[in-house]
């Protein structure tokens, strides 16, 4: 059993907030605050500085992208504060804004993903661990969309690996998904890093940068 991670939860619909609180508690998270509006979230994040937080995009008082704005603002004050953003819809635009600071520990998922508790909790843990988790729908839109130049040099297999990397998978998880050995995945990631001209630094950071490049992340 890993250490209990302190968690802040922001969701304006009572039923979902309650459900998420139970779900997270049942999986060993310590929910220190569960709030229902933007300003409350801002206060709670600054006060608790949680190990991870789960934030809904649309919340009172404006019912627009309140959650996203608070997440971005707080991460400007506390860089790298792990936040998983949940939304009823996903936009590349929002994904790029979240990834723009390049410090990782960020997630952006459709609310539907909560249905699958194991995968959802896994995503929360990966964000808490400094990883990047993007919803498969964002990835699919990117694959269908315009490939920016450095990416066109990647082989289809490398693009696949990069896509899974953007979803937040570790090398082992990618190996399992693509039915190849972990060593083969390592070769692919090394090749991706060199093609995207990402110099040697710690692996997490390079993964974030690769995903940023993937999202056309020169913002």
């Amino acid at each position, binding site marked *: 059993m890993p250490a209990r991670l302190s968690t802040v939860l922001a969701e*304006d619909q009572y039923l979902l907030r309650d459900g998420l609180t139970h779900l997270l508690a049942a999986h060993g998270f310590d929910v220190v605050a569960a709030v229902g509006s933007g300003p409350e979230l801002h206060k709670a994040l600054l006060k608790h500085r949680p190990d991870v937080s789960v934030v809904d995009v649309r*919340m009172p008082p*404006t019912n*627009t992208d309140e959650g996203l704005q608070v997440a971005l603002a707080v991460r400007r004050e506390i860089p790298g504060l792990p936040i998983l953003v949940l939304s*009823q819809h996903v*936009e*590349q*635009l929002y994904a*790029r804004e979240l990834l723009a600071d390049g410090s990782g520990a960020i997630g952006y998922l459709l609310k539907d993903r909560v249905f699958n508790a194991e995968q959802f909790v896994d995503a929360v843990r990966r964000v808490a661990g400094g990883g990047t988790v993007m919803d498969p729908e964002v990835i699919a839109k990117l694959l269908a*969309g315009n490939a920016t130049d450095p990416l066109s040099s990647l082989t289809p297999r490398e693009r696949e690996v990069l896509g899974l990397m953007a979803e937040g998978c570790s090398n082992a998880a990618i190996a399992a998904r693509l039915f190849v050995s972990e060593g083969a995945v390592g070769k692919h990631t090394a090749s991706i890093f060199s093609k995207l001209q990402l110099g040697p630094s710690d692996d997490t950071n390079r993964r974030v940068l690769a995903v940023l490049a993937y999202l056309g992340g020169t913002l």
Partner: protein
Amino acid sequence: MTKYWQSIGRAFALLGLALAGVFDLAVAFVSFCLLCSGLFFFFGPAVLYARRRAVTARELAGRWCGIDIPAPYRPEPPEPEREPDGWYRRENSLYKTPRWPKFFLQLDWISDDPATARDLGWLILNPLVSVLLPVLTGLTGSLALRWYGRWTSWRLREVPRRPSSTRSGLRRWLHEHFEAFWHQLALFGLGLAQLVMLAPQFVVFLGPWPLFPTMTQSSRAVADTFRRVSTEWIGVRIDRPYLLPPPFPVRRADGMYQFGQQLSEDPWWPARMSRFKSMIQDRATWRDVVSAVLNPLVSAVLSLPVLLLVGYGFIALQTLWLWRPISQIWGTGDTDTITMFSLLGLPEITTNGQALLATPIALALIFIPVVFSPWLVKLQARFGRLFLGSTEASRLAQRVSRLERTRTDTTDAQAEELRRIERDLHDGIQSRLVAMGMKLGAVEALIDTDPTAAKKLTADLRQASSTALTELRELVRGIQPPVLSERGLVDAVRAAAMDSPLKAEVSVDFDGRVERPVESCVYFAVCELLTNAVKHGEARAVTIELRHDGGALRVTVTDNGIGGANPARGTGLRGIERRLGAFDGKLTLVSPPGGTTTATLEIPCRLDSVPSSPKTNTSSATD
């Protein structure tokens, strides 16, 4: 040495080509005269025939004179497309075979291409230059050929149209004033044409009056040309004042058509009658008549003195420096020259010194009247506007009919939209929920007896609920995309640009948000344009520009595709026009075949200058 003789030979060949061009020119001229008299069959082929000469000249300039001239012609028009019903359509006519539509497409293509005018101008001037070519080649060898190549390139190259501001001072002055002079003459000519059209109009009014609407239509075409020339060339805006034509008579229950107390089996007669009546009642018809009488008079007063003085100056200049020396050299009777001078009222001039003194007077006669041309032409156009322009009443009448039409369009579109949403909900989410309910029942029944099957069913259920959510999301996106309500138009357009497979660039020059209904309308229009660029335009990159100035939002979408978009054809473009119509907005589409397509949406609207967040929604949030 052989090179020298080769150059001489080439010079003679080029001279031959130039002389052959005179023949082409004659053919083109005759065909143009035939076109003016209504025989339009010959003009296109004749111009294409003359074009071959210019093409040869360009090739020879490249090969013999060492100067490459790229062909400036627009790409040929595409083949006419067959409509689904098997006919070929051109504007409002249908044809059985593609022959005539193709012919007209070609005619438009040829007469719209600025290269055609350039070719013909070259054909006129080229013989004058080419006559010198063999002599010069004899003197300088291949150097003259090179000069000739430069000359050909200068006349036959595609010249980008420079805005007048880039011209130097004197050239701009000359351009502006002589252009205004030419516009004066054009307005005078149009005034005369109005007067000429008046005669048959009155004849049919007194005699075969059912022809009156047709005749009036033709004279309105002349008045419209006056309006267009005045608006586009001179900058004096003249709006069309005419009322919309009456609707076509509606068939009664007994199969007859009615006009007043008259019934007829054929709709022709009632349609004529109602058109006649509406034209007689339209004040604009009678204002046109007044204008046709007064316009040529006023224009004559304002433009003829200038024309006479300028013409007089030209003739004086010619007499001083052309006819005088010629008659003195040939010595054929000084009497002729003297008569000419006295006719022009000039003092008798026999020496070059005297001529030099008289020259400034002749030049003054040409240039001083032209000084007033820009001002006079404005007066002419303003006087034209007095009777040809719209009045308060005609503007109101037009506005009412326009509002009626856009209101119908809007309510129709709204009803159609609601039907679509209902259909989507009914066929999609609703049926999925029913299926899920049934599966839940099965789970309830199985949960004790067969837990593994129940477990499998719940997995299915989860899948089904996720699919239902995806469908719902698509539906919501079609009604009002969430990013639009969360972030406003600019970011929504950015998001749409990111989702499109095109390389898109978005530039914005304002902060804040425009009115919500306008946002939605513009957003969907931009999405439609992006889709079109991918689907029909085969574009790879697109730029989207959003600007707000002068109380209007202007959105320009430019793609690098194959062009040729036609609002009359695409239902999507018509849909955009209809949506925009509800806000008094309009769509302008410039899409030459083979070129970039530029669509501009223009909607009058306010801008909330403070980038405020949308007002708080008290209903429960969906996210």
